């Protein structure tokens, strides 16, 4: 690292020019114990030079002006010593690695202009940055910041271009108007290894941690037109399986971190936003709607507010969350206030979208052929009752239902406006977001989000007290169809006209369900989401800090279902009704903590101890109204003549815990972390309420060993190992009590009471033992960084909603399962800097995860409810199926292996095929190319899954009154023929049975692998000079393509969402502006 320091012309007569070559040496702070009485600075300097590698650079003239100093210190840092030395001197100093440069306190420039410009350089955390070179109008003036990060030009032009550079930071150029004082935030230049990573109750770096943590930063999220950050991390993180449930706005994402730990209970990770846990369950009530797409509470966070998402995976990273860490932890950090000139940032984009894939369907002729052939195969004469399409409907009419119902274009607009700024002590950040999108379904459906967030940060003058207050409020409104419209894709192509001549919905004498009338049934949600967080800390002594984190979240979802009269066939007795739901979840959390840092010699120690108190109250009310005078009144419950309360429920969850962490390292080479937690949860019976969790992690940076230190090829090497125990309390409240709730209906004019669950007073904690070995390798000065993880998690004493036969009166009970489940797998991540030149750069990140799981043991499996579901030694994600043996050439029906030879295909005796339905591997490749001010990013995701439900699970048998994908044309037609699809049939029992068995056969699961270009983003940033002329800080234009291409052989709509509405491909363009 080179730094050239120009001293101003004014001092040329003292020292002409000082050119110093600096080399920064990473290392631990050395401490000094010194005592001086009226000593000259020179004496002090030589004493320090004797005891340490630090060297002072100064001129005799400078020291001539200095005052003698007196002080006594014990084991204090160099900075402390220097601040004592320079307290009353006309001099100041700058540290550059081992060099301490002395200079006069005031540096002025002899420019022919007339004002004083003072300023301060701080890093992203608001910490002052010393020794940063600040230049104005190239060649016209240069200085460096002092220990407080401050600089001054006594005579600067009214409008100046500041150029800020330094070894540790990313260089910056900016234009300053006529202001006397500026605060500039600079970005520290860090490699991936030294980038700050958020962990439980603190921060670390990839280099120093013993845990396994993946990070997705705002750079990766920011290039995607998304409304839920989960969509943005899909495919980018090893070990994390994410799938969108539907292409409709606000829909839920299923998420599994390192496989399925639990057979049938919560597998959701713990979400923590700025220290406050977020409910991960959908707030959607029984009213449901939107095509079965449960609203995700995570959609209530504006992705633009997110600074980074950290995914904590192994025991070392998660054990401190104890009972909630079993399924991993996802930490969401929101954007923080930054010091600097008040800045207005705007990001606006807009675009269009369509579904990724449509199904190739039978055309009119093929459909009619199919129906006629089916009746002829069955030997049945078509009648009005069994063939209205052939006997009643117009056989020449054709409608492409798919195109009509899910083939529309949608439109989206997204605007974010932010304001930030502040001094070195106090900073603020506010951001307002607005997002609006329509859907690909005909009608007025869509989503509308508004959010406002803020963050305030203050640091006391003595830098000991810190306070951060942040909050966000989002209002999210979705308006979706009540019914899943994708079920109507199989309407006969000659189904009747949508409207009558009079412009009313056509029901064709009650012979069909008009899908446009169905779309009149709506499901509206309005979610208000408040997240707030207060963080206070105080440094009591050096290294000893007391902190408290207090948070409050409130999520309130209101639902409104409207089923208007016009959506019903007037030939049927149904009438208008409406549903009203309200679900409120409020969480309060307080986490006091005490941390202590201590270094001696090469050893560094950090201790953390704290406690958690959390209370969550949930209140749900669902009501329905019927007997309306008019469809227009469906918004009102009061206008209903009958009101029914479907759900009225309140529950309380309380959680308390104590945690501690000890981290030690020696010489930044050997690392040890110990975590411990004792947890209590109200979800367990009194006897089982408390449990202990903990972990140990070891790390060894072997590249720092002498043997490897000189290696040119291997620049970094680290081996780590962790093991520990975590738990899971996603079991719902009050499960240990035998409770009765109010039943839906009264009887004999009194409210009635019904048991709500089978109860188990004695269930106890589930424990997941996590083990991991991980290897990090850096090659060629860390241009290539490879991480390989092998994890091995064993779940014991599983707490599950144990499935029970209906003879018990319920479908299951919460109990501990005497089973052990092993989740293990490999994760690979390779980060490469393929090209790094002045104008060009090319970075890439490749991830690959190979997840596996096994049912290790299951006591009494054969006599349990799972006897026909699981096999010991096999993965959990298996499906027992009939073994398909092809289309019988003689009968034309599907045939299967008759395992027990009884001449019939029956379950479970003939379930001969055990099919693995899980993902074999998945991953992604992210490429970022930069040429001058142009940037191009391409992210490709891939998933390999060989057996997944195809269109067969959703479509009726070929030949019935329902359209089919065109795959079915290769059907059996005559005796002796080889075919892949059985003969068309409408009502033949043997064909129908064969088809039902086919659905339950291995053949009904097809290849669901896909490679998808998930995102292409291109941007162009205006050069600084142009910005200066336009008086703006920066400006860039971008286009983004989400899901533009997919390669898959999947038979069905989209392999990700399967039977329901596919994800969308979006094309958006926009602009980002900072003034």
């Amino acid at each position, binding site marked *: 690292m080179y730094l050239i320091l120009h001293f101003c012309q004014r001092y040329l007569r003292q020292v002409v020019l000082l050119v110093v070559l600096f080399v920064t040496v990473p290392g631990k702070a050395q401490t000094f114990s010194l005592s001086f009485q009226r000593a000259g600075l020179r004496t002090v300097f030589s004493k320090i030079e004797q005891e340490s590698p630090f060297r002072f650079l100064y001129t005799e003239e400078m020291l001539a002006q200095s005052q003698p100093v007196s002080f006594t210190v014990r084991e204090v840092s160099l900075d402390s010593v220097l601040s004592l030395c320079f307290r009353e001197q006309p001099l100041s100093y700058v540290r550059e690695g081992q060099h301490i440069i002395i200079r006069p306190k005031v540096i002025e420039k002899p420019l022919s202009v007339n004002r004083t410009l003072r300023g301060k350089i701080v890093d992203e955390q608001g910490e002052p940055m010393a020794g940063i070179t600040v230049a104005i109008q190239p060649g016209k003036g240069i200085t460096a910041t002092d220990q407080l990060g401050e600089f001054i030009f006594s005579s600067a032009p009214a409008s100046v271009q500041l150029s800020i550079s330094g070894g540790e930071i990313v260089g910056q150029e900016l234009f300053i108007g006529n202001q006397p004082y500026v605060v500039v935030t600079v970005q520290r230049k860090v490699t991936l290894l030294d980038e700050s990573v958020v962990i439980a109750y603190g921060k670390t770096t990839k280099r120093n941690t013993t845990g396994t943590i993946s990070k997705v930063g705002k750079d990766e999220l920011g290039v995607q037109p998304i409304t839920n950050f989960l969509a943005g991390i899909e495919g980018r993180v090893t070990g994390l399986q994410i799938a969108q449930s539907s292409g409709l706005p606000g829909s839920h994402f299923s998420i599994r971190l390192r496989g399925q730990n639990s057979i049938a209970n919560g597998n959701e990770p713990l979400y923590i936003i700025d220290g406050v846990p977020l409910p991960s369950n959908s707030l959607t009530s029984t009213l449901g709607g939107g095509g079965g797409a449960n609203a995700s509470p995570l959609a209530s966070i504006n992705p633009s507010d997110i600074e980074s998402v950290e995914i904590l995976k192994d025991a070392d990273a998660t054990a401190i969350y104890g009972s909630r860490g079993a399924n991993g932890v996802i930490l969401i950090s929101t954007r923080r206030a930054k010091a600097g000139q008040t800045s207005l940032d705007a990001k606006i984009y807009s675009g269009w979208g369509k579904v990724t894939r449509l199904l190739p369907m039978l055309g009119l002729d093929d459909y009619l052929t199919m129906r006629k052939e089916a009746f002829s195969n069955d030997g049945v004469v078509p009648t009005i*009752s069994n063939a209205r399409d052939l006997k009643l409907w117009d056989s020449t009419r054709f409608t492409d239902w798919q195109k009509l119902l899910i083939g529309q274009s949608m439109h989206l607009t997204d605007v974010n406006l932010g304001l930030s700024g502040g001094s070195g002590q106090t900073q603020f950040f506010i951001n307002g977001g607005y997002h609006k999108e329509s859907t690909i379904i005909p009608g007025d459906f869509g989503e509308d989000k508004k959010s406002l967030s803020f963050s305030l940060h203050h640091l*006391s003058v003595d830098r000991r007290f810190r306070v951060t207050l942040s909050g966000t409020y989002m209002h999210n409104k979705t308006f979706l169809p009540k019914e899943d419209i994708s079920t109507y894709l199989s309407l006969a192509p000659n189904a009747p006209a949508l409207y009558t001549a009079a412009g009313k919905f056509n*029901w064709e*004498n*009650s012979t069909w369900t008009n899908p446009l009338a169905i779309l009149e049934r709506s499901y509206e949600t309005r979610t208000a989401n408040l997240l707030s967080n207060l963080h206070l800390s*105080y440094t009591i002594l050096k290294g000893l800090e*007391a902190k*408290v984190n207090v948070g409050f979240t409130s999520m309130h979802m209101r639902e409104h279902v409207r089923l208007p009269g016009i959506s019903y066939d007037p*030939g049927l007795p149904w*009438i208008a009704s409406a549903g009203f739901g309200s679900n409120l979840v409020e969480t309060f959390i*307080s*986490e*006091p*903590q005490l941390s202590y840092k201590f270094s001696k010699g090469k050893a560094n120690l950090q201790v953390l101890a704290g*406690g958690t108190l959390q209370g969550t109250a949930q209140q749900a009310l669902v009501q*329905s109204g*019927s007997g309306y005078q008019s469809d227009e009144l469906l918004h009102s419950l009061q206008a209903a003549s*009958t009101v*029914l309360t479907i759900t009225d*429920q309140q*529950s309380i969850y*309380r959680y*308390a815990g104590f945690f501690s962490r000890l981290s030690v390292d020696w010489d930044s080479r050997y690392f040890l972390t110990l975590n411990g937690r004792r947890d*209590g949860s*109200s979800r367990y019976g009194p006897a089982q*309420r*408390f449990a202990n969790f903990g972990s140990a992690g070891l790390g060894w940076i072997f590249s720092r060993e002498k043997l490897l230190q000189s290696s040119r090829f291997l620049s970094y090497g680290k081996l780590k190992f962790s093991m520990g125990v975590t738990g899971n309390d996603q079991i719902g409240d*009050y499960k240990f009590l*035998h*409770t*009765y*709730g*109010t*039943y839906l*209906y009264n*009887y*004999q004019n*009194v*409210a*009635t*009471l*019904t*048991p709500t669950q089978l109860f188990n007073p004695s269930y106890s904690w589930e424990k997941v033992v996590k083990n991991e070995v991980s290897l990090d390798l850096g090659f060629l000065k860390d241009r290539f960084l490879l991480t390989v993880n092998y994890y091995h998690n064993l779940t014991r004493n599983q707490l599950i909603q144990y499935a029970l*036969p*209906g*003879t*018990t*009166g*319920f*479908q299951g009970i919460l109990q501990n399962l005497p089973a052990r489940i092993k989740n293990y797998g490999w994760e690979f991540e390779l980060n490469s800097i393929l090209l790094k030149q002045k104008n060009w750069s090319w970075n890439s990140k490749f991830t690959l995860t190979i997840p596996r799981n096994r049912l290790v043991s299951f006591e009494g499996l054969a*006599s349990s*409810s799972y006897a*026909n579901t699981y096999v010991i030694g096999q993965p959990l994600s298996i499906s027992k199926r009939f073994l398909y043996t092809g289309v019988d050439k003689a009968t034309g029906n599907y045939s299967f292996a008759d395992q027990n030879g009884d001449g019939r295909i*029956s*379950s*479970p005796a003939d379930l001969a095929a055990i099919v693995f339905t899980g993902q074999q591997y998945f991953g992604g490749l992210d490429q970022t190319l930069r040429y001058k001010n142009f940037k191009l990013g391409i992210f490709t995701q891939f998933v390999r899954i060989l057996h997944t439900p195809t269109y067969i699970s959703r479509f009726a048998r070929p030949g*019935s009154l329902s359209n089919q994908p065109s795959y079915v044309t290769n059907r059996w037609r005559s005796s002796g023929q080889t075919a892949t699809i059985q003969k068309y049939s409408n009502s033949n*029992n043997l064909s*129908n049975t064969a088809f*039902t068995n086919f659905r339950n056969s291995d053949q009904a699961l097809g290849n669901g692998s896909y490679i998808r270009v998930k995102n292409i983003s291109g941007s162009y940033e205006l050069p600084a000079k142009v910005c200066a002329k336009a008086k703006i800080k920066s400006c860039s234009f971008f286009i983004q393509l989400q899901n533009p291409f997919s390669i898959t052989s999947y038979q069905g709509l989209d392999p990700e969402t399967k039977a329901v509405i596919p994800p969308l491909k979006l094309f958006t363009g926009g602009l980002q502006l900072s003034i």
Partner: protein
Amino acid sequence: MRNILISLTFGAALLAIPSCRKFTDPGEPLTQLTSTTVFSSDATATAAQLAIYAQLEGNGFLYELSVATGLSGDEMINYSTLPDRIDLFSNNLRPENSTVGLLWNRSYEFIYKANAVLEGVKASNKVSDPVKKQLQGEALFTRAFCHFYLCQLFGDIPVITSTDYRQNASATRQPASLVYQQIETDLLQSIQLLSANYVNAVNASTTERTRPNRFAATALLARVYLFQEKWAAAELTATSVLNLTSTYSLRPDVNQVFLKNSTEAIWQLQATVAGFNTYAGALFPFTALPSNVSLTPLLLNSFETGDLRLSAWTKRVMVNGTNYFFAYKYKAGQNAASITEYTMVLRLAELYLIRAEARARQSQFAGATADLNVLRSRANLPLVNLSNLPSVLDEVERQRRCELFAEAGDRWIDLRRTGRLHPLMAMAKGTNWVITDQLYPIPQVEINRNNLLVQNPGY
């Protein structure tokens, strides 16, 4: 200032450490009651039993039962495009059929709830004695009622007499004879416990026949005796109810049979669903082409000319020159102005038919004919004089068909009892019918979750 900040920070920290044990105790749920609380008062204990009736009506259990058996049998034609309905109609049932699953699961849910009431009341010392007796009687009756229908649909079935899920999860199918034994025991005990009056929610007498009383249990017992071919007992038991002429009598006008608090009612279910009087009244009618079910020509043709029941209990809709009929026993459709009808569960007419058959089997043909003529005369049909067993049985079968069609699957289960189901359906349903279609399949989920359950033949 600094001291204030320090105290603030630590004050907050200290505040956060009260007793964790106390903090993590969630207390009693706010919107639910624990079972101990439920069975600590007459009102709440009664509410636990009433929920079963509310659900029986609220879920349309009897409607589903009559549609399923009506489609499997020869009473109804399917127009629904739901595959589960199509399969019922074409006798192509699969163990995955959702209607079959619903009939099974609901029945066992009711049985669980009845057992929970039995156990809760028994353990309680706070429920008063009269209420205790009434509730125990009703719970035993409910349990018998559900076991009876399960046995008719599925054949041998698990008998569930406790709430112990460990035991119930691995229950095995009991031979029908043992199931009947349990039903009989429950009903006999229930008759001892139940009040002769109909009672309301506070255990006072009422004119609403919406909770089973002693005679509801007696009427069901008469049926159970008949199904076990205990002819004498069946006759005697039926007579004991038929003799209560001050309480029970046939309504002379067939249009008034299904009204609420009808004198013919032995047990009715109070209307619960908003906008519905009854499920049957709300869901059977149509005005254009049927999209649910219609009545078969076979059923319509079985009525003798002049039978009042044909015109009163069915309704015709003509579309494009074709006639379609629906069951019209219940006249009140959706959103009727007031509640005038309740779902009939047990009614007097059936007891005449039970006694007629029981008498004929004991060669009391005159008595049998007299019972049949009671129903014939109300339907405005000429009286008959039958003097041998086949002719009486034949007339009982026809009268059951015309009197009790679309009522809780009476025809289906009665034909199966008499062994006539297979021959009749083989004729009516064509080649799709096989003998094993007489029993519904045990739901596949049940087989999957309880290895000890064996599937019925043919599935």
